[in-house]
């Protein structure tokens, strides 16, 4: 099973730019396909995939998503169609937070979701900036793992997540 999955992924991967079949492959009905945090230059600061993708495909996705969001007029919607999916993005200073979700999903809710994540980061790093995220990238991943799991929201209370992170830090 695992082997054949691998084979299938590769064969689709060879197909070139058409990767959206990947995004829906495997985890059917998964709500968040991936979360990206990129700066304006396109450097990835966080990339969390909830669907299995080949490394080369991940790079391609990151490149394309950056291209899509970086030059959009701030007055435009925060939603861009991306293959058969939809990117919900939000810009904070020089950082773009992007989530890839189903085309039929509630865009406004994910916008709120991104904002909550940023608030948690802001609270955790007390006034977060890009450098915090660079030097503590692993912490960012750990916070995300307390916030979202299996592509679904896990906790909606900022306080609960910060407290949980505190507990875990004590164990280090």
């Amino acid at each position, binding site marked *: 099973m695992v082997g054949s999955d691998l084979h299938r992924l590769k064969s689709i991967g060879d197909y070139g730019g058409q990767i959206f079949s990947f995004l829906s492959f495997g985890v059917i009905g998964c709500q968040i396909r991936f979360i990206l945090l990129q700066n304006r230059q396109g450097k990835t600061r966080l990339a969390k995939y909830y669907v299995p993708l080949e490394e080369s495909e991940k790079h391609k996705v990151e490149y394309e998503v950056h291209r899509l969001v970086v030059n959009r007029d701030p007055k*435009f919607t925060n939603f*861009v169609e991306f293959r058969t999916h939809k990117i919900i993005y939000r810009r904070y200073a020089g950082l773009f937070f992007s989530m890839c979700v189903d085309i039929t999903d509630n865009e406004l809710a994910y916008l709120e979701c991104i904002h909550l994540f940023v608030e948690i980061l802001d609270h955790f790093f007390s006034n977060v900036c890009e450098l915090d995220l660079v030097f503590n990238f692993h912490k960012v991943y750990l916070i995300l793992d307390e916030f979202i799991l299996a592509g679904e929201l*896990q906790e909606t209370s900022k306080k609960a997540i910060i407290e949980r992170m505190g507990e875990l830090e004590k164990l280090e």
Partner: protein
Amino acid sequence: MNPFSSGTRLRDMIRAIRACKTAAEERAVVRKECAAIRAAISENDQDYRHRNLAKLMFIHMLGYPTHFGQMECLKLIASSGFPEKRIGYLGLMLLLDERQEWSGLGLQDLNHSNQYIIGLALCALGNICSAEMARDLAPEVERLLQNRDLNIKKKAALCSIRIVRKVPDLAENFMSLATALVKEKHHGVLIAGVQLCSDLCKASTESLEFLRKNCTEVLIRILRDVSNSPYAPEYDISGVTDPFLHIRVLKLLRLLGQGDADASESMNDILAQVATKTESNKNAGNAILYECVETIMGIEATSGLRVLAINILGRFLSNRDNNIRYVALNMLMKAIAVDSQAVQRHKTTILECVKDSDASIRKRALELVSLLISDANVKPLTKELVDYLEVSDQEFKGDLTEKICSIVERFSSDKLWYIDQMLKVLSEAGNYVKDDVWHALIVAISNAPDLQGYIVRSLYKAFQTSSEQVSLVRVALWCIGEYGEMLVNGAGMLQGEEPMTVTESDAVDVVESALQYHASDITSQAMSLVALLKLSSRYPSTSERVKDLIIQHKGCLELELQQRSIEFSHILQKHQTIKSSLVERMPVLDESVYNEKKGSPSTNSIPAAKASKPVATGASLNLPNGVMKPTTAPIGDLLDLSSDDVPAPKLATNDFLQDLLGIDLPAAQSSGAAASGGSDILLDLLSIGTSFQSDSLPSNNVSNSQLNSSVVSPLDNLSSITSTSASLDIGVSTIGPVGLMDQKSRSPPSTATAPAIDLLDDLSNNMSLPGIESRDFPTITAFESSILRILFSFTKQPGRPQVTQIKATFSNKSFNTCTDFIFQAAVPKFIQLHLDPASSSTIPPSGNGTITQTLSVTNSLHGQKALAMRIRMAYKVNNQDMLDQGQVNNFPSGL
């Protein structure tokens, strides 16, 4: 030692990488680090393993290969301490994915006594487990769902979601556990539980029923509590308590209420409450409203509730926030199916959105507008869109033009309006108009005789201002060529039309400037030349000038243009007498034929028009059946086909059989069946049908009588048979299935044969000589072309009137030997046919010898139906494949 808090080496590495000025420098640093890490891995360094892995994760994020560190993740997970495990799992989720096997380690940690370690394992499992692991570890996760620790509970719930998605069969194991979860108070557990329920509903109908029965009430209570809840700082987002929980519950209610009146009924109140009471001045509130509207649209809601929902969308549409407008448009698109009247009320606002500066809003709005268009509002809406075309962005013009054209074509019953709109679109965005759209316009113009004068004058005017729009120019050229005189004499003036004076030379000016302006566009150039030729006859005074213009293209490098130029100038110079009849107005184009053609998907197929108008191609007939039959149109058509359009010799015998068996199909179907491939077309064209010309019958009689006297059957040659050619045995039993193969959507052959047989009946009635049972049958020429002549002579055995032996004699009239000769034949179902091998596969040239082949035919409807046969001859002349086909319908009566 903590690899992170001390901030020594990981920090240093990041700093070093950030300090790099160029990509090459960065690569060098990374290479050095990777080398060090590899060394540490091969030394099995324990102390720095977690730090090295952290570095690898960073390197991985930069896009460098890090596969060599994958084993380190597993080693770290296997170690005992929490910090090591934590970084190990993090690395596992980043560097590895579900294709790697780690279920042994996972199983261990799921049973760990430390709740934090269980949490780590659940997190990794939820994010990257494979179907196999899901199956293996599902029992552990089920157990953890009942754990007292809320953190473990919610993580286990989300893990279960992944498991159910991977292995939907397991859904039933989680049903009752999920119902227990939604009774919890903690929001984290609740939201995970609600989401798990949603996934269970999608995974199996059994779960859906179960949850509908057991959860609906609970969910309604959750929604009521959370929406009535007083200010709760922990979950408050801009004045709304936990919008995420709201949304998840609304989603699940939608799944439960869909198609179930009782469940929907119980939700009505709470949905109405959420729809009316939720704050709509912040994004969070709007997110809830949006989800609530979708749920109302999704369930069996009362009409009052639906109106409420559409009104919310109406409010959204007038919101200043683009995001809100975008989702409103999205939702209205779905709402049209439910209540299009209600959506219609917002069409002005929607139309405004078409003009928005944001491309995604425009695109949505345009789609929505085209869905909203009806007979009642098409004119004002189209006017708005056409007006907007003038000012829209270049990149949007393509989409907009396409939509307008499709709308205008859809409501083209008002000819004048349709043509007016098309003229506007052509002059605004003619470069974006697709070919088939302006082709359709020309067909429509040709069918509107009372508007042609108006059209040609409007086009002339439009050309003055928009000569850069290619399709406008083409339509204008065509119309000026056809209706040039109406341009000058102002015929067919419509009421309210502004009179204008155009001289003949003005009209030629237009064509001349088109020739110059669109010099690189061959189609326009070619159309200009035709228009000029036509004008020279319409406006005799300009003919000298036209001649000069046409002659200019004599040296053109484009073959098409050069040929037109030379031929047209010949017409102008040498054939003055026939010129005027030559360039008469085009006959009115057949709209139904054009539409049919447009509808047929394959462009390389022979247009249906050809099949339904066989007479049109009858003139090019080159291989008549029988000796002299100038009007055998259907066959002419098919021979035409085989000689140039379709590479028939490449068809497999199988196809050929199908083709020949097309005899069963009435010709009426040939135009309807949009052929998918060459063989199908053949099949269609080959069918004997009503288009068969009855006036050919007398001439048949004539030819037969001529044959009687002139043709001698060369029976002598029969003895010298060496069989090389393929023999065909087509019996009733085999014809049936083969014939049916391609007839999925067609009527059964029993009814289909009727028209063909009727004709053959006529044939036999005309020709029958009643009363004579066993007589000599005349030899007939079954087929004759410039190369081949085939004679059939008939013998019958006494006492078996239904069996006929046919001796086919093939002779070669050309001066080259025919080699590899194969003769094939097919007959209707009521006839059985047996072919003996031919005497040879080579026919000597110039009639110096013949070959023969015996066919044995059993007519099961002897006396009722006459014989009919299709034949096909494949052979080589000078090593070139040749293929002839024909239909033998001049059999003597009584066979």
